[in-house]
């Protein structure tokens, strides 16, 4: 069973606007949530994380919001840049294992 779900396979946003990528999870035991970014022919690279005891974490243009009651998190990218075009994976951690979503492909158009 997929415990981490990214229901939007793709998203297209204009340069300079906000990109919002969403993620839902089912396991309330997850203690950390991470976002990874993946370019073609490269492995995923860590972007930003949030602990389950927080509801917001910000790093430059990237902000992750966590709503534990709704079991939902989102990644906001403001402003979006063409170089942000990539596949974004949401991942949730319990003990050692990372449970990944299927990813959302973001395209930022000029």
């Amino acid at each position, binding site marked *: 069973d997929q415990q*981490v779900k990214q229901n939007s396979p793709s998203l297209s946003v204009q340069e300079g606007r906000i990109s919002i990528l969403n993620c839902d999870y089912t396991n309330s035991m997850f203690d950390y949530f991470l976002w990874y970014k993946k370019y073609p022919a490269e492995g995923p690279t860590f972007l930003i994380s949030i602990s389950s005891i927080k509801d917001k974490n910000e790093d430059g243009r990237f902000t992750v919001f966590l709503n534990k009651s709704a079991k939902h998190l989102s990644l906001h990218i403001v402003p979006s840049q063409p170089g942000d075009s990539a596949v974004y994976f949401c991942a949730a*951690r319990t003990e050692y294992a990372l449970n990944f979503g*299927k990813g959302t492909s973001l395209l930022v158009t000029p």
Partner: protein
Amino acid sequence: DAMVIQNPRYQVTQFGKPVTLSCSQTLNHNVMYWYQQKSSQAPKLLFHYYDKDFNNEADTPDNFQSRRPNTSFCFLDIRSPGLGDAAMYLCATSVDGTGVDEQFFGPGTRLTVL
């Protein structure tokens, strides 16, 4: 630069012919992971090593084995590849698997089974 290296990047094998994928790291991390990612699917953890301690996921097929001869290297052995084993195989490392403990990924090996 410290990194996670996977060789080869592309591997073609025949149905039933054993194949070994390689991963090495210069990060000196304690934990090494192997993930399988099929097309349009989420990466799925197969197993991981904490130092020399091997931890298999419950649903990883017996066809998949792993070796970690030292801190730097970890191998994924597929004893009898089937068509369903065609996938991208990702190796990752992390410091100790606790806290936020970011995992660092290699570029992956794409396995084709003919």
